[in-house]
């Protein structure tokens, strides 16, 4: 197996400054938000890599950089050995583009309300001048809808059905990699399972690779082969799913697991996670997690921990043990 996606030293900075006149009047410098800093990860072909983290941890930003919607500020993202933002050969870029697709969080905003489902699904192929005859009908049946739905408009479908249409669109160009940005978080729980099962089946049948962005640990357990945990734009732990669910090594991952609702422990008292995710414009010194960490020592406030290989996992923590 080879790595389909190689992300090295990926950093993405957003300029969140006010307009120059306001800055001049208020005598403030420019403000920058480091949404993602120095992330290294690789995704093997035909596997599911799940990125988890709280809101604002930079997981969606990584997804957008991978599909090419955002340019990296530093570092590189290579897909099949091609860096979309540096490659100058248009044919290569086009080829890789057709190998990447994305499924978005809200099925209500990701389908153009004025287009028929047939045109929506066929667009990735039509945009490249491919043959779209019968394509939408075939894909609709593949995702569990009826071929006759191709003549309808998106508003005639429920949330789960729309997400199936999004999946059909993502499959249209025969991609290798699909980035799924919280694809089920806008759906009812009963529908979530159907959509996830469909995605699992398709992954096996078509040999797809998923980058699965989510905050839902049950989804991770269901789907992922490898899990990466993000905190404030940094990867703090990465491990195979079973190893991670058996024992989380990073205190932040442990806190996430503690906070997750569990159906088998209904009524248990949970200590809510301490504190909130810090301001990413002005992150804490040293380890970004130290203000909330139960294990924090003086060293954590000074020195940022590097990623260390601990058993099956890679962990960025001074205190973590194998």
């Amino acid at each position, binding site marked *: 197996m080879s790595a389909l996606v190689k992300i090295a030293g990926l950093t993405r900075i957003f300029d969140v400054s006010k307009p120059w006149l306001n800055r001049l009047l208020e005598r403030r410098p420019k403000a920058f938000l480091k949404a993602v800093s120095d992330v290294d990860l690789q995704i093997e072909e035909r596997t599911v890599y799940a990125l988890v983290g709280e809101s604002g941890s930079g997981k969606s930003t990584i997804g*957008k950089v991978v*599909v*090419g*919607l955002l340019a990296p500020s530093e570092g590189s993202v290579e897909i099949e050995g091609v860096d979309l933002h540096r490659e100058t050969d248009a044919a290569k870029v*086009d080829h890789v*583009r*057709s190998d*990447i*697709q*994305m499924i*978005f*969080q*809200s099925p209500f*905003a*990701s*389908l*153009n*309300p*004025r*287009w028929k489902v047939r045109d929506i699904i066929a*667009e*990735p192929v039509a*945009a*490249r001048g491919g043959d779209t005859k*019968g394509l939408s*009908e*075939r*894909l609709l*049946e*593949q995702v569990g809808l*009826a*071929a*006759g739905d*191709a*003549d309808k408009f998106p508003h005639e479908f429920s949330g789960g059905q729309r997400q199936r249409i999004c999946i059909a*669109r993502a*499959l249209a*160009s*025969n991609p290798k990699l699909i980035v799924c940005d919280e694809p089920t978080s806008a759906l009812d729980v009963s529908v979530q399972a159907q959509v996830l099962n469909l995605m699992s089946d398709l992954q096996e*049948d*078509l040999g797809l690779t998923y980058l699965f962005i989510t905050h839902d640990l049950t989804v991770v357990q269901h789907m992922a082969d490898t899990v990466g945990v993000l905190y404030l734009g940094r990867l703090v732990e990465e491990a195979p799913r079973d190893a991670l669910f058996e024992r989380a090594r990073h205190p932040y991952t442990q806190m996430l697991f503690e906070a997750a609702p569990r159906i088998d422990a209904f009524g248990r008292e949970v200590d809510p996670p301490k504190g909130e995710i810090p301001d990413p414009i002005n992150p804490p010194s040293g380890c970004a997690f130290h203000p909330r960490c139960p294990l924090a020592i003086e060293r954590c406030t000074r020195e940022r921990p590097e990623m260390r290989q601990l058993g099956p996992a890679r962990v960025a923590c001074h205190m973590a043990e194998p």
Partner: protein
Amino acid sequence: MSELPVEKPAEAPSAPSAWARFLDSDFFYSFKRSPVAVVSFALVTLLVLSAVLAPLVAPHNPFDPATLNLMNGFSAPMEPNAFTGETFWLGTDDQGRDVFSTILFGLRISLFVGFAAVLFALLLGVTLGLLAGYIGGWTETLIMRAADVQLTFPSILVAMLIFGIVKGFLPVDARDEAAIWVLILAIGLSDWVQFARVVRGATLVEKSKDYVQAAKLIGRSPGAIMLRHILPNVLGPVLVIATISLALAIIAEATLSFLGVGAPPTQPSLGTLIRIGQGFLFSGEWWILFFPAMTLLVLALSVNLLGDWLRDALNPRLR
């Protein structure tokens, strides 16, 4: 994906025709339920039809001197002329022109200028608004500041200014010929701002939605995204502004013509007729002014009411 069995496509339920879907739509239902909308739509249709069919409907062509009889001058409405015994529904003017016919032909000019000016303003405003909203940055600053500056002047003043400047560049003998087109340009240029502002706002909302991201990531060009994805989704408010702008453009044209800077006497619009008529008001020939003015009022009012209804019908929050 070829390994999955491809079943015969299920029989699609026969899609109802576009007309049947329209008759069944909320839009048409709301139209039927609003007497104001039905009446104003009927009036607008009547006026547009009679303007379009003026050569067939009008008793004579008031601008063909061969059909005029000076002896018919100043006939009062519905009264036989003292000299010729002819009766005119709405009377005649000083030249013996039938007021009803002049109104029909004037309506042609007024409506043509109104529609053409709104179309021009719409194309210009929607294009600039889309570009400003989608591209952002300096393009947006440039377009929107130009719009803001133009908004600080009354639009009738802008139209007069443009009218004057463009006419100044034309050779003298072409001025009357081109007056209508200059009028369209002037009113259109004074009215694009409304379209640009609304379209820019709607574009900002639409471009952040995921369907635009989806189109971007498959490599669609910005032009294709603007035209095929965003434009269809911002047309609702544009339709409403276009209707209300139509009433404003007709009034602007009438104002300019009334002031004598608009349609030339050889192609009189309703505004020109009102200007001509007001000269006879104090000598008792009220009908020369009254009927063109009433026509303008009914036209502007019904277009406006139709626009108001359209705004409510297309805005789900006001339902």
